[in-house]
């Protein structure tokens, strides 16, 4: 048999997707063929910083050069707003939607905007991340930890905040930076956990310390890099990548618990490329994406990815219900308190 480029690519990608042999492989080959015919997929994502999102898109295109992947990376609330505008105007643009705010997925599911699909690649996903949606419409595709960050040039090891409440001390007045729950789903989740753990007073005290409010959770990392602020709540992934590039960032896992944000993805009912969307979901649950995320410092959902695994120590994980109810509440509370 001649090995054409096409069969070679299919073979490689089936391998790369980590498939079980037999029926599943045949099913996957069929899906790939259908997806190739569609030739494109549009991904609204808030899961990572822009660069990592572009890397994930590029990894997909590398597996399937015939399928053009359009990556629209924004904060979760902005992505959701645009999706809502699309839906309201009956304009189908988005194939796969990846928010960091579980509430979005619950709402969209209830309104029938999601297509139910169980990726074959769920087979290799760590049990911690399975069954995020009991109805099986959306699936966890990455996780991120919210931790304490500090600028190493201005903050010594000894004075680095170790507990979340350390951010509230007078030492850091005018030196804290955080994102905005009205934009970032990750920040929203963190705010909900802090509120439910320490009460809203935590934020009233934070407000007195005159923090700089960015939009994305990733904004904290750039603000620390520039020296504009000294300590922050920020995402561990981008912080690690940034530190590895020589930026002055120190990551500290708070002893009272890093907050884990498990982020879901789902296929839209009106996806203009339904097969490419399914294939992209397979990709998001598969080993290549897991490795891209591990390399980007995130917590990948597959235990086989190199550098995966959560750190030792306490981790706070909110329930779906806590997030769904909590985020809209804390956005309003936040706007009233911080005025923006």
């Amino acid at each position, binding site marked *: 048999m001649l090995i054409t480029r096409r069969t070679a690519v299919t073979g490689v990608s089936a391998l790369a997707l980590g498939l079980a042999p037999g029926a599943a492989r045949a099913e996957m080959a069929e899906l790939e063929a259908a997806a190739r015919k569609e030739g494109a997929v*549009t991904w*609204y994502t808030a899961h990572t*910083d*822009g*660069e990592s999102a*572009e890397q994930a*898109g*590029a990894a997909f295109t590398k597996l399937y050069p015939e399928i053009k*992947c*359009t*990556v*629209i*990376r*924004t*904060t979760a*609330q*902005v992505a*959701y*707003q*645009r999706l*809502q*505008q*699309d839906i*309201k*105007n*009956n*304009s189908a*643009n*988005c194939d796969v939607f990846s928010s960091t705010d579980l509430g*979005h997925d619950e*709402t969209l599911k209830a309104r029938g905007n999601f297509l139910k699909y169980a990726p074959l690649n769920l087979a290799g996903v760590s049990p911690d991340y399975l069954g995020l949606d009991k109805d099986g419409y959306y699936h966890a595709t990455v996780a991120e930890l919210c931790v304490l960050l500090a600028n190493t040039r201005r903050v010594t090891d000894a004075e680095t905040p170790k507990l979340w409440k350390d951010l509230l001390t007078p030492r850091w007045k*005018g030196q804290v930076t955080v994102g*905005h729950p*009205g*934009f970032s789903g990750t920040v929203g989740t963190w705010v909900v956990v802090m509120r439910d753990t320490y009460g809203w007073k935590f934020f009233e005290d934070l407000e007195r310390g005159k923090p*700089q*409010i*960015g*939009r*994305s959770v*990733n*904004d904290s990392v*750039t*603000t620390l*890099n*520039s*020296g*504009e*602020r000294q300590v922050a709540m920020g995402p561990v992934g981008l912080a690690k990548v940034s530190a590895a*590039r*020589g*930026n002055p960032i120190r990551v500290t896992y708070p002893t009272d618990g890093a907050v884990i944000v498990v982020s879901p993805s789902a296929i839209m009912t009106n996806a203009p490329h339904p097969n490419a969307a399914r294939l992209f979901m397979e990709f998001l649950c598969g080993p290549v994406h897991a490795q891209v995320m591990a390399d980007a410092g995130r917590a990948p959902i597959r235990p086989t990815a190199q550098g995966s695994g959560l750190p030792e120590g306490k981790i706070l994980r909110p329930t779906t219900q806590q997030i769904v109810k909590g985020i809209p509440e804390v956005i309003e509370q936040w*706007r*009233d308190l*911080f*005025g*923006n």
Partner: protein
Amino acid sequence: MRRFDPLTIVWVLLAAILAFLVINPMLRLVLSSLQAVDTGDWTLANYAIAYGRPRYIQALWNTLMLGVCVTALCLVLAVPMAWAVSRTDMPAKGAIKLLTLAAFVTPPYLGAIGWILLAGPNAGWLNQAWMGLTGSGEGLFNIYSFAGLTFIIALYSFPYLFIFISSALDTVSSEMEDAANVLGCGTLRTMVRITLPLVLPAILGGAIITFLEAIALFGSPALIAIPARFNVVTTQLLQFFSPPVRAEVAAAYAVPLLLITLCLFGLQRRILRRRGFVSMTGKGGERRIIELGPWRWVLLGYSAFVLSLCVLLPYAALSQAALAKAWGRGWHLDNLTLDNFAYLLFRHETAGQSVLNSFYYAGAAACIGIVLTLSIAYIVSRRLLPGANVLGFLCMAPIVVPGIVLAVGFYAAYAPPPFALYGTATLLILAFTTRFLPVGYAQASAAIRGINPEMEEAVRILGGGRIVAIRRVLAPLMRRGMIGAWLLVFIPASRELSTALFLYGPKTRTMSVMLLDLSEEGNFERLAALGFMLLIATMVIVAIGFRFVGRDFMQRRT
């Protein structure tokens, strides 16, 4: 009985286009603000929600204060410079004009990023320098404040006023100033009592435009006001577009802005009514350059200072950031990189496309706008049809609509079915066309009025039809003026953010929206690099424009 004039069809066609571009979106804005979203019943509930919280009213108040403060600051910046360039023997006028042009083509949000790099309270260059010099623990400036926002908006709005005032000053002859001098007035007193009052219409008109621009900006407030923790109308409008999308509440929130601008124009009429501003008598009044002596250096210093604030310093900061791995580390060899440009051009899926989109939409809007306004200006000035003035009025009407309000109107009118234009290039092009229709019309009608109809009549006496007259006489004569007008629409359209923000879709992202998306992460290095790509492309187009029309295309034609 009068014969049916085929031009009537043209009139109907143009009127229909203007109804589509101008009347319908505004009508839909007002109507949707008064209707319940599900039932379509008449209601004031949207207004109750839109103004039902202290936070929302505070945002409106902040915007009004911002508009007033920006306008006042712009007057301080623009009036002395315009006077110095137009009327005095200040040296280096060419360089001052060129730098003002550079300020004019700088998108305000890009300037804002430059100033974040300069005046970020802890890491900004100026504050670092201050702390280094004085040993102080705190910086001197905080860009993340109301004053900071006012300052940076004014820096990039004052060129409008400069253009208005210096164009008007160029036409004032020296006779009245001479009379004042003879009666014992000094130079300063003459300027304040005689010259400036003569150009009051231009100052008022420019001030109103400045005010409107300031209150309609979205980019600078998003960058400055969110960290500074206050809201303005535009950022609040965006919140009404957050889920649950409440476009009708946004409409209700925007309507008062429309009323405010209408009041402003009414006020302008009252102030200017029954006063004589005739300074062009057609009797060849001589214009004499005022000799300032050593004061000319003071004025030059002032102009150079202002322009270094809005061009030189921010551009230096932006170029450092665009070429840096981390801008906070400053100028070091190991901090230099071209990677930010490489990332945008080669590793980013949509950045390159967004650049092309911006220029495509702006170019298309400029072409449509010029053809449309030219046809209408021609019909109006040659009195070809009764009721032509209505068309002229409609062309100028969008001037009272802030860009973001226009976008909300366009969204209400054309995003949903039956038009279903949401997210299409068509919608963006049409919205940009409407937004800059007044600029195009002012240019077109000035260009046409400048051409004596006798030349066309000569063609017709010699047996040529109107089409021949237009093609062989009018078109060649107006070429220069039209390229200038095209540029004056193209440049602002290529960087328009507040209109694009509500209308674009994933495939029609413009560069301005792309910049905003990138700014969410605070990644100033790449933002600066993208900004430079925009600037370089704009500069190339402006340079081509110079070749055709000379530097004077920035002059306002009245």
